[in-house]
């Protein structure tokens, strides 16, 4: 069983960390994991993304043409990945920024107002956690508990005071994903 997850958005939306968090959690549960970022001067342009693969078997390609899951935090990423995503795949959309709806009916789509949630619970910077929460509600590749643990273990020291808030955002994202859908 292998799940490929792409997380994409602007730099500053916590895209890379969100991916690493999934990878850590996967590793802690004894799974094979890979994490690979987009790198180089494209960054300068502003959008960043990373691919995480969580699998029971050794992982071949760390990159995939068509991911099982795509978490898109901004418009350009939405435009790009709603096309690439695998049929019956999951598309997690940050509806705080992305007003459009996906025009594919072979997808499961969940809309989460990530910025809104994060701002409400303290700081917009935590929006990535809301999206992760939403994804895990639909694709329980990992237990919420493991993610929470991973977050506790790997949140950079200078942010440790935000741990609680991050956890709340994570849970809220999970919760809303339960309700909202199309």
């Amino acid at each position, binding site marked *: 069983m292998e799940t490929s997850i792409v997380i994409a958005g602007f730099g500053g939306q916590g895209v890379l960390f969100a991916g690493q968090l999934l990878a850590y959690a996967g590793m802690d549960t004894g799974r094979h994991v890979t994490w690979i970022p987009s790198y180089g001067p494209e960054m300068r342009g502003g*959008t960043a993304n990373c691919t995480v693969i969580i699998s029971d078997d050794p992982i071949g390609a760390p990159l995939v043409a068509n991911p099982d899951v795509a978490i898109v935090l*901004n*418009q*350009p990423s939405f435009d790009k990945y709603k096309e690439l995503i695998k049929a019956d795949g999951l598309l997690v959309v940050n509806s705080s920024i992305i007003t459009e709806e996906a025009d594919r009916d072979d997808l499961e789509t969940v809309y989460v107002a990530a910025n809104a949630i994060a701002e409400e619970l303290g700081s917009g910077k935590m929006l990535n956690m809301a999206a992760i929460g939403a994804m895990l509600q639909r694709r329980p590749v990992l237990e919420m508990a493991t993610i929470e643990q991973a977050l506790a273990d790997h949140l950079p020291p200078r942010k440790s005071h935000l741990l609680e808030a991050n956890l709340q955002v994570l849970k809220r994202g999970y919760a809303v994903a339960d309700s909202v859908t199309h």
Partner: protein
Amino acid sequence: MAQGRIVVDVERCKGCELCREACPPDVIELADNLNIKGYRPVILLDPKHNCTGCALCAVVCPDGCITVYRDLPVKGRRELSHAQRVA
């Protein structure tokens, strides 16, 4: 004091605010929404017509987003109409 206005190419603007910093009468503001590149562009917010058309904003803009117009001084206008008469 001369009067003027600027036009910002909002899709090109990256919201760096250098122009805003450079503007003496402080008539440049960040817009509320993002452009397609995901940046929050600036706009001219000048109800009192304080923009002097000094072009300092344009001079510091790294992305060449700003076009600047300045009202002709009354003298200038007369000259123009004069010129037109001649024509």
